[in-house]
């Protein structure tokens, strides 16, 4: 079963503020920044406004749309409430994103009835408790359940039975299958494969030749098969990386600004690493230029690090290697990967011990009084990034859901 909250952020804002109901609204960052659409209400979507679109483009399509500045705490807390509700029906809940989850209800049917009945109960509970609607897809596997939930929006409930699958796949565009993005769909189209059925019937050698190892997977997807199981958030695997990115309020050539943003991002990544007890030794710098061309470069170092300033210096080394900017920058991101879980390292050198004690004290102060209560002086400079949102969804049992990504940057 796949549960997809309808226009999640926008619906919350419309629920919270009656004046926004039945109106086209756009949830994004600050109206004074160059934000993108995080979510648009269904009223705004009728004008073609879509998630990820620049605010300028959205306003061109729907000038009367009301821009609401997003509130990540509100959405994360609501997401946690949703998970609590879903957990009443099954302990097999896989969090797919802040507003989507997969459920395995195989073991819950004796208690709550058939999947369709469970879905109805979930919808009713979500509406009653939070005043929100969702679309639910029910199918033999996750791929098809996700497809089913997309079929009826808003407030839909679609079940795909095993015998219906071939008929559904016949004319289904490949990009409707979760996991096939724009690039893959375009590549497939060039090869003459446009529908899921065509993908499922394509020779596996042909797909492997063009897509490598994922050729096997693509063929299975084309046949509507998905062997992956629902992985409950209580059993999710190791965190592989942690990162943050930020879209600047305006395209910039200003290296000082880029460095300042980079330091702030690095501090945030370091804080998350330390909170989770991780250290990493590969740092990735991401830059997106004004023409949306995005590139990333990484650098592996010998030591495992978890301090913001250390991450920052590695990111700076990468930045120096890049040299002069060819175009103005619109987004900066930093990520740390190749992680190890570190329950606490003992240092022999006095200087390291002192540093550890200092960082520990800073962390405790920030824990008590809030993030960035103490921070590097460089950040006292006017920085544009008051709100930076990470781009990975960690399992909630490890920490809070405060790392979910409410706003695409």
């Amino acid at each position, binding site marked *: 079963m796949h549960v997809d909250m309808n226009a999640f952020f926008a619906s*919350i804002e419309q*629920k*919270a*503020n*009656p*004046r*926004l109901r039945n109106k086209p609204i756009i949830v994004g960052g600050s109206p004074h920044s160059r934000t993108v659409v995080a979510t648009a209400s269904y009223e705004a979507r009728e004008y073609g406004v879509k998630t990820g679109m620049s605010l300028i483009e959205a306003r061109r399509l729907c000038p009367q749309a*009301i*821009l*609401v*500045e997003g509130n990540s*705490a*509100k959405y994360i*807390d*609501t997401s946690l409430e949703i998970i609590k509700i879903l957990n009443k029906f099954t302990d097999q809940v896989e969090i797919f994103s802040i507003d989507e989850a997969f459920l395995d209800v195989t073991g819950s049917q004796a208690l709550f009835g058939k999947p369709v009945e469970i879905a109805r109960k979930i919808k009713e509970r979500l509406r009653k408790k939070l*005043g929100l609607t969702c679309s639910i897809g029910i199918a033999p596997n996750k791929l098809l359940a996700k497809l089913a939930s997309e079929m009826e929006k808003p407030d839909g409930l679609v079940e795909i039975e095993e015998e219906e699958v071939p008929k559904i796949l016949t004319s289904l565009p490949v990009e409707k299958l979760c996991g096939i993005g724009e690039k893959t769909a375009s590549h497939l189209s060039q090869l003459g494969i446009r529908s899921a059925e065509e993908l499922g019937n394509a020779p596996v050698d042909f797909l492997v030749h063009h897509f490598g190892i994922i050729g096997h997977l693509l063929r299975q997807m084309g046949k509507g098969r998905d062997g992956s199981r629902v992985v409950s958030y209580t059993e999710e695997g190791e965190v592989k990386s942690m990162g943050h990115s930020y879209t600047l309020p305006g395209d910039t050539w200003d290296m000082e600004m880029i460095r300042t943003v980079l330091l702030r991002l690095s501090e945030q990544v370091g804080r998350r690493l330390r909170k989770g007890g991780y250290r990493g030794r590969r740092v990735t710098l991401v830059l997106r230029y004004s023409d949306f061309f995005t590139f990333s470069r990484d650098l592996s170092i010998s030591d495992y690090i978890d301090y913001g300033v250390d991450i920052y210096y590695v990111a700076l080394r990468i930045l120096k290697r890049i040299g002069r900017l060819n175009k103005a920058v619109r987004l900066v991101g930093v990520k740390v990967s190749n992680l190890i879980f570190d329950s606490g390292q003992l240092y022999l050198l006095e200087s390291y011990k002192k540093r550890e004690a200092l960082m520990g004290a800073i962390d405790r102060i*920030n*824990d*008590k*009084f*809030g993030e960035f*209560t103490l921070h590097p002086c460089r950040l006292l400079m006017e920085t544009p990034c008051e709100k930076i949102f990470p781009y990975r969804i960690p399992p909630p049992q490890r920490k*809070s859901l*405060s790392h979910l990504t409410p706003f695409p940057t």
Partner: protein
Amino acid sequence: MYEVIEEPIHVGAIFKGSKIKPRWFIWKKRKYPIRDITFRWQDRKGEENLLYFSVSDGVNTYEICFNQKSLNWFLSKVSIEG
């Protein structure tokens, strides 16, 4: 749409078990009845747990907040028509 206020307010609320139901608040010497709690959520600032309520007096929508550590209320935002 929303105007950030962040000012202390006096609030009349019913505490029932773990549920808090604000009924009215006084801001700038004026009393505002709470006709509807339209949404609630919580946030943290360091050690402080903040409970937020979107409330309506039938005309405007307000975001009020209860700091569970200091036990203070404040008016966070106001949404006024226009």
